[in-house]
């Protein structure tokens, strides 16, 4: 069999294997009850993977994410409260691991920047609108009126022609 014949088969095999690759999910993590499992899932959903930066710990296939999932799992099994698990990770990896960053001096621009910008935009918009309302449209002068009539008349003529 030549390589070109094998390609579709390989492709198919890849497609079939894809769900397996992402099936690490929570199979390997055993919990005492449904509540604990859900708490675990919630938590890893809110923590950010440092390798694939736009993925949560729950969604990332990176090896580091797996290490951190295991660490979070271990801590939760030991009965550590959620806050402590989060604190543990923040102390080592920084606020970056949080999808919901805390409100503090260094994150003020993050939290209030958009509000500030929207405020400035709104202010400018309001001012522009108000100004528009106040400018009275000047009436046409006699001369302009006459010219207008002429133009309209011309246009009429052209339409009929």
């Amino acid at each position, binding site marked *: 069999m030549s390589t070109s014949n094998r390609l579709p088969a390989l492709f198919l095999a890849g497609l079939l294997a894809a769900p397996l690759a992402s099936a690490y999910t929570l199979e390997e993590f055993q919990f005492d009850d449904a509540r604990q499992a859900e708490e675990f899932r919630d938590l890893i959903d809110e923590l950010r993977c*440092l*390798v694939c*930066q736009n993925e949560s710990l729950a969604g990332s296939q990176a*090896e*580091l994410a797996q*290490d*951190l999932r295991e*660490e979070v799992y271990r801590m939760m099994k030991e009965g550590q409260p959620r806050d402590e698990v989060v604190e543990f990770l*923040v*102390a*080592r*990896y*920084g*606020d*970056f691991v949080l999808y919901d960053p805390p409100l503090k001096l260094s994150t003020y621009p993050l939290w209030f920047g958009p509000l500030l910008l929207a405020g400035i935009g709104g202010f400018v918009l309001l001012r522009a609108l108000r100004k528009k309302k106040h400018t009275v449209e000047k009436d046409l002068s006699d001369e302009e009126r006459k010219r207008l009539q002429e133009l309209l008349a011309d246009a009429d003529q052209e339409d009929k022609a």
Partner: protein
Amino acid sequence: MGKSLKFLIPLAIFMVLAALLFYGLGTDPRKVPSPLVGKPAPQFNLPALNDPSRSVSDADFKGKISLVNVWASWCVSCRAEHAQLMRLARELKEVQILGLNWKDEAADAIRMLRMSGNPYLVSAYDPDNKVGIHWGVYGAPETFLVDSAGIICYKKIGPVGPDTWETELAPTVDLTTKTCKESS
């Protein structure tokens, strides 16, 4: 401001935005600042890579300035920085270079050192990221500068280049007192 110049305001805003975005192009989002800088290095105790009966721990920091280099044989950038570490090991008499062999196979790691040289005084062996997590390691290579009291002065993310020691690492430590400089 004269009314005649008002039309320049949008242009000015655009220029500021463009400057910000241009600055953003030059920054690397993969470099996440470590909260550990300025804090004591996390305690650890691991077997040495080439001799499991010997242990490597934070006690090794005592009295010396240390570079703790996180590396692995599978890590391509680590190979790229290897020559620089060899040079630093030769030239910097006042600094000891310790390795943290991270998520690696001992045999592969030892082979790599045998083939291309060993810049480390000793490498700690951390195959399953037991200690790496506590150091906030999220990729290799990473290099920590630790002072004689065990305080982390600086964390270099990514490969050490020809001028990394001079421009990034050295300015954060006082070589005579062997302590971190206060960051200004």
